[in-house]
C-alpha cells in the first residue's frame, strides 16, 4: 500500500497554494502540521481527488488516482475541515445516507452505522437531528462517516476542531486503534494531536514541506535552540517581544520562559530538550503562534 505525491502543485492565478510537493506514504499515521495558509487543506483535497492539481500526480499503488476515480474513492475516507450536514437528518439517517453514497449495502450499512455511533459515543443521540448537536458531537459524527467504508486511506482535516481536551484524547486513542492497515493523514494545528500517534510528521509552510520524518528525528532540527529562562515578571515582556517564546509559566513569583533561539537569550538560560511544539514554533515563528 503506497500513496505517492509526485510534485503536486496547485495554483490559483498568481497564488501558489501547493508548490511542487512530493511525499510517499505507506501504512501508518502521518501528521501534517502547518499554520493557516500553509496549503494543508488544498493538499488534502487533491489527495481526495476533489481538487485537480495544476501539475503533478497523486499515485496509489502505481496508479494515478484521477484514472482510478470511483475505485479510489471506494477506499477513501475523508473528513473535511468544515463539513456541512442536512440539519433535519438524524445522526443515524446521516450515516445511512453517506453509506448509500459510499455504495454500502443497506443491511451492512445499518450494522456499520450502529457500530460507529457506538465507537464515537453518539449511540444515545442517534435519533436526534444533527442541527441540535454541539460542535464536538458534529465532529464525532464526521469522523464516524469517514470510517463507514472501512477506508484504506483516511484523510482527516483538522479533526479535533471543536473537541474538548477529553474528546481529543479519545480521538487520539480512536485513531491509534483504527489505523492498522491504513494510511491515515491528519492535519492539525495542535501538535499534541499528532505528537504521540503519528509515526511520521510533515511540517508544511507556504505550500511546501519544510521538514518531515519521525517526530524524534525532526525535533533534532531545533536541538540546541530551546532554552528555559527564569526572569522576574516585569522582564518577561522584553523577552516576549525580542524572542520566540514557546511557553510562559509562573513559578515562585518568577516567569519561566521557554525560548526558541539559535543563541542563548541570556547567560542564565538553560538549554532544554526540544519537543515537537518547539519545532513548530521555530518553523512558524514569523507567522505567530499556532492555535
Amino acid at each position, binding site marked *: 500500500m503506497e500513496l505517492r505525491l509526485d510534485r503536486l502543485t496547485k495554483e490559483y492565478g498568481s497564488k501558489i497554494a501547493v508548490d511542487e510537493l512530493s511525499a510517499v506514504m505507506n501504512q501508518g499515521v502521518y501528521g501534517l502540521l502547518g499554520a493557516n495558509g500553509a496549503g494543508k487543506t488544498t493538499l488534502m483535497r487533491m489527495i481526495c481527488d476533489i481538487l485537480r492539481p495544476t501539475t503533478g500526480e497523486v499515485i496509489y499503488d502505481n496508479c494515478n488516482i484521477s484514472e482510478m476515480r470511483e475505485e479510489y474513492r471506494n477506499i477513501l475516507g475523508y473528513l473535511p475541515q468544515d463539513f456541512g450536514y442536512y440539519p433535519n437528518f438524524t445522526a443515524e439517517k446521516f450515516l445511512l445516507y453517506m453509506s448509500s453514497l459510499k455504495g454500502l449495502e443497506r443491511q*451492512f450499512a445499518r450494522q456499520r452505522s450502529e457500530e460507529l455511533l457506538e465507537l464515537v459515543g453518539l449511540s444515545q443521540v442517534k435519533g436526534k437531528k444533527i442541527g441540535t448537536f454541539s460542535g464536538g458531537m458534529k465532529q464525532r459524527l464526521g469522523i464516524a462517516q469517514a470510517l463507514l*467504508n*472501512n477506508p484504506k486511506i483516511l484523510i482527516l482535516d483538522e479533526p479535533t476542531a471543536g473537541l474538548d481536551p477529553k474528546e481529543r484524547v479519545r480521538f487520539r486513542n480512536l485513531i491509534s486503534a483504527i489505523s492498522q492497515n491504513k494510511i491515515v493523514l491528519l492535519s492539525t494545528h495542535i501538535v499534541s494531536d499528532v505528537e504521540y500517534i503519528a509515526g511520521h510528521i510533515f511540517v508544511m509552510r507556504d505550500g511546501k514541506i519544510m521538514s518531515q520524518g519521525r517526530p524524534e528525528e525532526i525535533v533534532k532540527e531545533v536541538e540546541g535552540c530551546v532554552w528555559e529562562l527564569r526572569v522576574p515578571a516585569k522582564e518577561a515582556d522584553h523577552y516576549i517581544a525580542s524572542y520566540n517564546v514557546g511557553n510562559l509559566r509562573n513559578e515562585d513569583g518568577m516567569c519561566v520562559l521557554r525560548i526558541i533561539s539559535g543563541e542563548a537569550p541570556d547567560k542564565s538560560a538553560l538549554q532544554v530538550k526540544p519537543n515537537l511544539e518547539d519545532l513548530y514554533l521555530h518553523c512558524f515563528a514569523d507567522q505567530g503562534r499556532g492555535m
Partner: protein
Amino acid sequence: MQEQILTDEEMIVRIQQGNEAYLESLIRRYYDDVYYFCCYKTGDSELAYDCTQETFLKLTRYIHTYAERKKFRGYLFSIARNVCNDYFRSKPQETVDSDSLLLAADPKDKIGESETAQVVQKALAFLGDEQREVIVLRFYCDFKVREIAKIIGVPLPTAKSRLKRAIARLKEILGKEEDIYEG
C-alpha cells in the same frame, strides 16, 4: 463469526462490502475440496498445492466482480479447472501401461484397497484431460451434469456425451463391462 449459518451468497455479499474476514471463511470452506479436485485433475499432489493457492488468489481478485452469487461452488471450480489446465500443460503427461490395467478384471476383488486406489489414479491419468475432468467433477465433486457443462464451458449435450465416453473408457481400463452411465 457465524460462518455455519451463512450461505455462500451471504458471505459473498459481505466480502464485496469489504468485510475481509468472510473471505477467509469462504476460503477455508472450500480449500479442501479445491485441493482434492486439483489432486485428481493433475495427479500430482505437489502441483495441487500450487494450483489451489493460485485458484484462491484468482478468486480474491475476481470475487468483487462476481455477480452470479447463487452458483458460487461451480464458479470456484471453473477457476480451479482453468488454473489446473494452465499448470498441467507445462507438465508431461504420465504414460500408463494400459494392458496391465486391463488384466485386472475386478480390481476391487483381487487387489487390496490401496492398490485399487493406485490403479484408479493411474486409470484417471490414462484418460485424456477433458475426460478426466468430467469424471472428477461428476464422481469426486458431486456436480450434476448441468453444472459440469457450465464449469467446463460446453453445451449440456456435449458434457453428457463427454461424460458418457469418459465412463466407457474408464470402464474399459478398469475392466468393468456393465453400462454404468446414468446421465
